[in-house]
């Protein structure tokens, strides 16, 4: 049976002067997405933060497959989090969480 809502996982990284917490980063991403696409867009995208490594500042988002590029675009509009200059950018998108975890292990040294 074909799923009505296919999902995509997006790995992202936060570059900032200080280590940011999971809640702060999630708040910034949601706020940026809502600013661009509104509450309706947010509901359609079904955006969720799956995991976030506070030490490496790397996280994984899950969203609807039709909104993957919209989520990437919303990350470009984040230039500060909690009054700290920050850069949030996507590393890789995938259909499965397993691929992203393998990718994360592969590039662990470069992060």
């Amino acid at each position, binding site marked *: 049976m074909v799923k009505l809502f296919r999902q995509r996982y997006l790995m992202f990284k936060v570059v900032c002067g200080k280590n940011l917490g999971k809640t702060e980063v999630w708040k910034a991403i949601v706020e940026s997405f809502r600013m661009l696409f509104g509450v309706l867009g947010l509901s359609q995208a079904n955006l969720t933060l799956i995991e976030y490594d506070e030490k490496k500042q790397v996280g994984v988002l899950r969203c609807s497959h039709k909104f993957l*590029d919209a989520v*990437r675009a919303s*990350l470009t509009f984040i230039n500060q989090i909690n009054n700290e200059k920050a850069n949030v950018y996507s590393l890789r998108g995938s259909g499965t969480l397993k691929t992203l975890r393998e990718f994360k292990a592969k590039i662990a040294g470069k992060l």
Partner: protein
Amino acid sequence: MKRFVDLHIVNPSNVEDVFRFLSLLGYGMVGLTLNQKPEKIWENWKKLGEKFGVDVVSRINLKPSSTRELLGWLGNLRRKFELIAVTCESKPVLNVAARDHRVDLLNLTPLNLRLFDEAAAGLASNSNVALEISLNPIVKMERKMFPRIFFYVRRCLNLTKKYGIPVVVSSGASNILEVKPPRDLAAFIQIFGLDKEIALKTVSEIPKKIVEKNREKLSKDFVGVGVRIVKIGG
């Protein structure tokens, strides 16, 4: 060589860090803006770029106050830089820059995107000038300005589609906190109505073609369009 290109890195504070980061993100070519610095520094930066697998393109941003000033600068600087971008602050300057074959990129500040109209687009379509959309100047604007700026960007992109003008998307970054990956830049321009394939071309094929064309013209073997010196002597 990696296929993605960012043509607008502005006077980076730490060049080595920026090059390393750009290489990690998948960029193979970078346009670096310098303001009339000696040629020796360029050679050093090109060598540094090669160390990280990044091809460095010399670029200058001109910000003329009048058309006479622009034409004077173009005459002096065309053969010294691989890329010339003109930041247009007035309509006459925009029209002259759009019409001139020596200009590669039309760079407009977010609020000046309103200047790019049908007339400018018509002139640009005949001279193969590309329109450059830089991300960072837009992101740094106050949020209350976004609706107006997004309207201008969308209108510019509709005009480029209508007149067949190439579009280049760049980050306009000056440090690693402002650099974005190529797919994020492509996703940014997609929200204004561009197709995914064309959006990816704005950060890869289109800027690369501009640079290659200019490098060919600036090479010693170049005589005219389609004519090159192959051999000198008997």
